[in-house]
């Protein structure tokens, strides 16, 4: 019963962790490179916990690796936001800021979950994600209220990604917590940050849907999975 909700959490961290790891060796400064790789590492670690629990609850003999590497795009339950391409550093950091703000609110709620295993993972992850949100918030402010070039890029990133915000709060029975209830704390933090960053929140709250239900992922997910999954699919019995 909780497997679908666990997949949603684990697929979010897996897909975003994979996206961020592509910056390794390419970020605009060494410190940013190290930071993005560390955040990717935290997210992949959280993935092992969420997908490990999903696999155990599912009871079909699969493990976290089997779920990560041997499912196809339509089986993934991540938000459309996290599968969006990295594009420039501004888009990557804006995506991170929007996700971190939702993620921290979601994990905070999940620390109180009645299921002890779910609560334990949330308690572990919330510490790491508090740190992620602090950093992406600082970066959005620094670049938004930075040079003309950085400001333009951050506003463009916000305009591009805003249509993917609504899906984070569109809940159903498979979710492990009430997603709609997370919108108020999300809006409070985002509004305060955007004001400080001199960025303008887009007027339309139109939202693309279909990632967390698996009904309609964007074309970007399949390409990402092809890169991520090719090795274990080509050599399914390979061991480190």
């Amino acid at each position, binding site marked *: 019963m909780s497997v679908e909700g666990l997949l949603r959490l684990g697929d979010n961290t897996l897909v975003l962790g994979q996206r961020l790891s592509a910056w390794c060796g390419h970020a605009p400064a060494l410190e940013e490179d*190290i930071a993005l790789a*560390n955040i990717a590492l935290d997210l992949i*670690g*959280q993935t092992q*916990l969420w997908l490990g629990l999903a696999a155990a609850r599912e009871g079909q003999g699969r493990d976290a690796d089997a779920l990560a590497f041997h499912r196809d795009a339509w089986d993934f339950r991540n938000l459309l936001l996290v599968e969006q391409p990295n594009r420039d550093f501004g888009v990557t950091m804006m995506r991170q800021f929007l996700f971190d703000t939702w993620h921290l609110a979601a994990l905070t709620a999940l620390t109180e979950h009645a299921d*002890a295993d779910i609560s334990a993972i949330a308690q572990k*992850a919330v510490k790491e994600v508090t740190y992620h949100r602090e*950093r992406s918030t600082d970066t959005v402010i620094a670049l938004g209220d930075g040079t003309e070039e950085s400001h333009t890029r951050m506003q463009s990133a916000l305009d591009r990604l805003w249509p993917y915000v609504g899906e984070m709060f569109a809940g159903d029975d498979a979710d492990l917590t009430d997603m709609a209830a997370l919108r108020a704390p999300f809006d409070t933090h985002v509004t305060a940050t955007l004001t400080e960053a001199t960025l303008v929140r887009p007027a339309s709250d139109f939202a693309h849907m279909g990632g967390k239900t698996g009904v309609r992922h964007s074309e970007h997910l399949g390409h990402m999975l092809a890169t991520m999954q090719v090795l274990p699919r080509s050599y399914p019995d390979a061991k480190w």
Partner: protein
Amino acid sequence: MVATRAALDDVWDWLSKVPDPEIPVISVVDLGIIRDVAWQGDTLEVTVTPTYSGCPATAVINMEIENALRARGIDRITLKRQIAPPWTTDWLSDKGRAKLEAYGIAPPRPAGGPARCPHCKADTVERISQFGSTPCKAQWRCTACLEPFDYFKCI
């Protein structure tokens, strides 16, 4: 077989000599990641908590714990992973903190940053990045001696 069980005090002592693979100056006991040691029948159960959920050192740490105990003649070992309550730098021993600073890594502080430069001891320090060479560290620098240094993040 009961007669061959090692005393738990001895086990703790052996574990206190197992170094952290990334920061070899402190042990896994100093780091506060060994949560419990207990005999279950003739099997020694060691409860270990990860520092960060994705820390790649975790697998190496588990291997080193097993190797150290096997070297002492304990053949039946199970490592139990426990993630709640989550690891906190409050569990770092005082001895561990002192060793970190002597090694050039500023120990964690609830105030959110290092108290002073681990090299010249000046209190004029500034953050370079919230992240560093391992998940548990951030990069800072001293504006007095100009040396960069690692700060052990407080979580």
